[in-house]
């Protein structure tokens, strides 16, 4: 028993050491491309840390969204023509180290403050027990999904609105020059991978009701399929070619969420207070449309907002 505990201690220290070294290297590296690669690896190690801390939902989301899509979005800013872009801190070294000491002092102060109130957390603001008590009435059996889609549905509605605002902002910027090269060899890969990704997205969405998973992870998988199609040379990345369908898909998640909320309000239930007997189906409907919207939003974000035909 003691040996096992000791082993966990060693693993924790190793994970934290690798995580912190990767973060430092990603921030401090002078080569921009290397910094992006290190950031992607950092995201993958972070996914392991989430799994270690019993947060499998976040591990899935981090691997798909944080490391995967974040990395693809970062890579899309690299220019085709230049091979190496170096960014060193432009300030005098004394100033750089001074700033470093300052942020570490700030960090120590935050750590000291947080660690001194940590022992009181269990009695004061922890809401886990309240979630467990109400879980049976939420329509799903996975506590994280219950919080996201029922108890704190407001937050999730606003989050989808943030996604919508971001993609509207991206589309408002007009056409941006694509920096990636399409690769015909990818189309062989896409034939196998895209159907598999869509199937996995469907499964993860359905599984979210009772185990880790849900709309965000599923949407990220769809976006992965979209980006793969784009890189394989499909100009529309599998998105509908009709503009009104794209617009409809982008607003579907937020729109239907809002309509369900308002409908329940009109029904006399209160905003987003699902009747217990039907909660599961309302949540499934909202999650399905949210998945479509999230997938389309993230694919379009990679493509620069507006699908365009290749200038052949």
């Amino acid at each position, binding site marked *: 028993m003691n040996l096992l505990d000791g082993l966990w201690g060693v693993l*924790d220290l190793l994970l934290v050491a690798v995580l912190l070294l990767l973060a430092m290297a990603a*921030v401090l590296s002078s080569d921009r491309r290397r910094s992006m690669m290190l950031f992607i690896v950092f995201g993958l190690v972070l996914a392991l840390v989430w799994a270690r801390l019993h*947060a499998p939902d976040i591990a899935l989301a981090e691997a798909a*969204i944080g490391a995967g899509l974040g990395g693809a979005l970062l890579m899309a800013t690299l220019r085709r023509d230049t091979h190496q872009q170096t960014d060193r*801190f432009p300030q005098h070294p004394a100033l750089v180290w001074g700033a470093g000491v300052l942020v570490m002092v700030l*960090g120590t102060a935050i750590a000291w403050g947080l660690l001194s109130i940590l022992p009181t957390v269990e009695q004061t603001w922890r809401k886990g027990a309240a979630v467990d008590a109400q879980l049976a009435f939420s329509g799903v059996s996975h506590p994280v999904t219950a919080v996201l889609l029922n108890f704190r549905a407001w937050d999730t509605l606003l*989050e989808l609105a943030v996604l919508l*605002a971001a*993609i509207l902002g991206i589309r408002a910027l007009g056409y941006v020059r694509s920096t990636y090269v399409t690769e015909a060899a990818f189309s062989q890969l896409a034939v196998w991978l895209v159907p598999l990704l869509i199937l996995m997205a469907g499964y993860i969405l359905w599984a979210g009701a009772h185990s880790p998973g849900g709309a965000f992870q599923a949407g990220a998988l769809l976006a992965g399929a979209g980006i793969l199609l784009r890189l394989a040379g499909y100009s529309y990345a599998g998105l509908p070619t009709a503009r009104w369908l794209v617009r409809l898909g982008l607003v579907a998640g937020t729109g239907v969420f809002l309509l369900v909320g308002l409908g329940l309000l009109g029904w006399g239930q209160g905003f987003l207070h699902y009747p217990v007997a039907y909660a599961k189906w309302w949540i499934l409907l909202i999650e399905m449309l949210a998945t479509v919207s999230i997938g389309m939003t993230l694919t379009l974000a990679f493509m620069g907002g507006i699908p365009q035909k290749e200038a052949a």
Partner: protein
Amino acid sequence: MAGLSAINPQFLYVCAGIFLFAIGLWGTWLHAHYVRKIISLNVMGAGVFLTLIAVAYRGENLPPDPVPHALVLTGIVVAVSATALALVIIRRLEDATDV
């Protein structure tokens, strides 16, 4: 070995989260190039998420608190959408200054 098992994982990961926040803040503050500022900002965000999840962790035998988990899931998606918008603005800026 005996000394290592005495380290409380919650303590370790809270400290790691705050260290990530500090490192990210350093880079966000000092880097001149916007893409590097965005990467550093994301490291900062990861630090905040790690701190929250470490606080939600209640040891090997108790289920973790689902509320911070939901908050962090929301946070990851909001962070990636803000990052996407910022990166497209940067691409647009570079297109505009190239011509």
